[in-house]
């Protein structure tokens, strides 16, 4: 810790600073995911979470394994996968909007078929 403080403005940026930034972004995404009702808001929170893990991968690659590229390529593929997942999720959201005219998670149970009443013995 003393080493960190004495080298705070005189050395390269410490790795823990990057980790704290991605920590803030990750838990902002977790808060948004757990507390918002709108489906698009939930998807935006998922994007924040994925972006935070991208930063983590790249930082660990740069600081701990500078000669190798595994973290770099993992982040690259994660960006591509996130694009795919966003496209499919937004297609689903648009389909839900066409059927229900709003995109809140509370109203999704209106998509259920109405079952005929059957008394369970």
């Amino acid at each position, binding site marked *: 810790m003393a080493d960190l403080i004495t080298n705070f403005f005189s050395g390269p940026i410490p790795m823990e600073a990057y980790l704290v930034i991605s920590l*803030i972004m990750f838990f902002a995404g977790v808060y948004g995911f757990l507390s918002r009702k709108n489906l698009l808001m939930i998807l*935006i929170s998922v994007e924040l979470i994925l972006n935070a893990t991208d930063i983590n991968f790249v930082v660990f690659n740069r600081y701990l394994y500078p000669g190798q590229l595994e973290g770099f390529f993992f982040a690259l593929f994660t960006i591509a996968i*996130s694009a795919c997942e966003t496209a499919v999720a937004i297609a689903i959201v648009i389909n839900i909007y066409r059927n229900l005219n709003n995109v809140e998670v509370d109203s999704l149970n209106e998509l259920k078929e109405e079952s005929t009443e059957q008394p369970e013995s």
Partner: protein
Amino acid sequence: MSIVNLLKLFQSVTYHSSLITQHYIPFFCDLENKLYTGSNIMAQQIIFYILALIIAVFSIMAVTSKRLIRSATYLLFVLLATAGLFLIMGYHYLFAVQTTVYAGGIMVLYIFAVLLTQKPGEKITPEPLKQRVLAIVLAAAGFLFCGYIIVNNFNRVYTYVALDEMNTKFVGQTLMGTGKFQYLLPFEVISVLLLACIVGAIMIARKRS
């Protein structure tokens, strides 16, 4: 033994080995004898702290905003600042991919989706207080736990090797190569995944006549 030779030795020793703790070198030079001195480090620090502030403030504003289009805009700023962080670390190709794909492609998709499913300027009703308090408690608990792990490991030393920018030719050869540590197979798998997602998204969202 000069510092350059020491660094080359470290580089070759750690290339195929697992994590070993190394001594923190207070000043450093890259493998072509350029010395990084005071003003360059200061500029890097200032830019990093500006980007870090942007990320922290705008990611929290994005998840607590009452208007959806503003959340999408704040997310755009967060993604651009993340691309800036990649640029500071010297990964120029990843900066370009992050800007074009994430900030340029995915955010446009989000803005389309927001404008297709909402009247513009409409405010979202706030969620029930119980749900928000529970979410804050869980997020804060996780934040403190992970923060504790990070703070506990401050004294682990690592070597910051100052590299040149990542060579795009090397990235290309690694992405398309079939040797060890090369990534042709994940590249082909990603292309199949992209095809599946394109077909799936079109099938889901087309108009049923």
